[in-house]
Structure formats: structure tokens, C-alpha cells
């Protein structure tokens, strides 16, 4: 039976799998973005866990803060793209996006 830090790792991996599942299964673009956010949560938790186990919490926190800021920028741009798609196609269903030009 693993110790508590094993449970941390297992829980983070399960959340990562859940995020991947949402990205793979969802046709709604907003739900896909939510899956990507959930995936990032697990990565952030694993970085902090690695920092705790290696006693490098300062570096781990710096990495986690960097990751959170990049996640925000990514989310904002991705939501902007989804809104543009909605204004052109009037829906956010990935299955209906078949009008590629070029």
C-alpha cells in the first residue's frame, strides 16, 4: 500500500486521465477547454509534489506560478478563438467545423 505521497501521485495521474478523456470525447469546444484546464491542474499538483519531495519548494512554486500564468494566457486566447468560431458558424460543435479554407 503506497504512502500518502503515492496517493498524491495516483490522484494527480487519475485527474490527468480524466482531463485527457474530456479532450478526446468532447465535441463541444468549451468542454474541451475545460478538459485541458483539468489536465493542467494535475500537472501543477505534480510539480508541487516533486518540489516537496526534493525539498526544492521555491523552484517548484516558481515553475507552478509560471505554468498558471501561461495557462491563463492560453485559456484567454483559446476562448477568443472559440467565440470567433461561434460568430462565424453559430455553434461550438467541433464536428460541424468542416469549412476549412486555403
Amino acid at each position, binding site marked *: *500500500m*503506497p504512502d*500518502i505521497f*503515492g*496517493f*498524491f*501521485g*495516483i*490522484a494527480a495521474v*487519475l*485527474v490527468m486521465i*480524466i*482531463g485527457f*478523456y474530456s479532450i*478526446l*470525447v*468532447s*465535441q*463541444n469546444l*468549451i*468542454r474541451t477547454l*475545460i*478538459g485541458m*484546464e*483539468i489536465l493542467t*491542474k494535475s500537472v*501543477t499538483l505534480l510539480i*508541487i*509534489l*516533486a*518540489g*516537496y*519531495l526534493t*525539498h526544492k*519548494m*521555491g*523552484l*517548484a*512554486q*516558481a515553475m*507552478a*506560478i*509560471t505554468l*498558471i*500564468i*501561461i*495557462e*491563463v494566457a*492560453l*485559456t*484567454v*486566447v483559446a*476562448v*477568443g478563438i*472559440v*467565440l*470567433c468560431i*461561434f*460568430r462565424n458558424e453559430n*455553434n461550438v460543435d467541433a464536428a460541424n467545423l468542416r469549412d476549412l479554407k486555403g
Partner: protein
Amino acid sequence: MTDEQLHIIEAISLAVMVLLALWSVMTTFLLRAVVGLALTSALVATLMFLLGAPMAAVFELSVCAGLIPAIFLSAISITRRQTALTMVVETKEQIKQFWFLPVLVIMAGVAMTQVHVPQLAVRLAGVPDQDVREVLWNLRHLDLLGQIIILLGGAFGVVALVRGVQK
């Protein structure tokens, strides 16, 4: 608080975090999915506090449990044209198609509890443990510059996208 009590709180928080993430993905309504995401982020922030990472926990709580759900809610309010019934029907079809994936996840989780997870033996060469503020300002100053550029790029990108649509 004893170590055992702390471990119990951590174990319960981990289990609730996984369940909330699962609920956020499996629920048929987008608003509930966003609420589940916010609650998952709040629990991740709690776990970060318990692991001794208060600054990262504050960022996680304020940004990922506050700002990002607000962005999603505004996007949902703008794009919500489908009726609730249509969304429920489509989500039920998807769940039928990929019913085996959550079962695989649960089986993988149970199997992993039987495996001995070895302790990490990673060594970071030549980096003494410092305060996160010293690390960000002295050691990772290029990361700070990168973060500023990414934030500005994201802001200008969104402005450009919105302007292009309006034309």
C-alpha cells in the same frame, strides 16, 4: 494536528478532488462543469497549502478558481444557443459511445494502489532551496520576461481576433 490527522485530511481532499474532476467532465450541463472545475481548482490550492506552497496556492485559488471560471462563464453566456435538451441528448450519446473509458480509469486507479511507488531520487544540481520570490526574481528572471510577453501576446491576440470579427 498530528501527522496522521493531516494525512487523513490530505487523503480525503485527494479523493474529493478526483471525484469533482470526474463530475465536471461527466455532467451534461456546461455550467455545472465550470463549477466543478472551480471546485477542483480550490481543492488543488488546498493541497498546495498542505504541501507548503502558499504562494502557488494563492495563485491557483485566485486565478484558476476565480478568473478562469469567470472567463468560461462569459463564453458560455455568449455561445449558449443550443437548448439544454439537445446538449443532454448529445452528451448521453457520447457517454454510450465511450462508456468503457471511465471503467478503465477506475480499474487503473485500483491497480495502481497495489503497485509500490518508489521514492523519487531526483537531484537538482547546485540549486539551494530559496524563497519563491528570490527564485523568481534572481534565478528565473527570464521566465518573468517570458510571462510578461505571453500575457501581452495573449491580450493583443484577443483584441486582434475580436477586431477581425467585427470588420
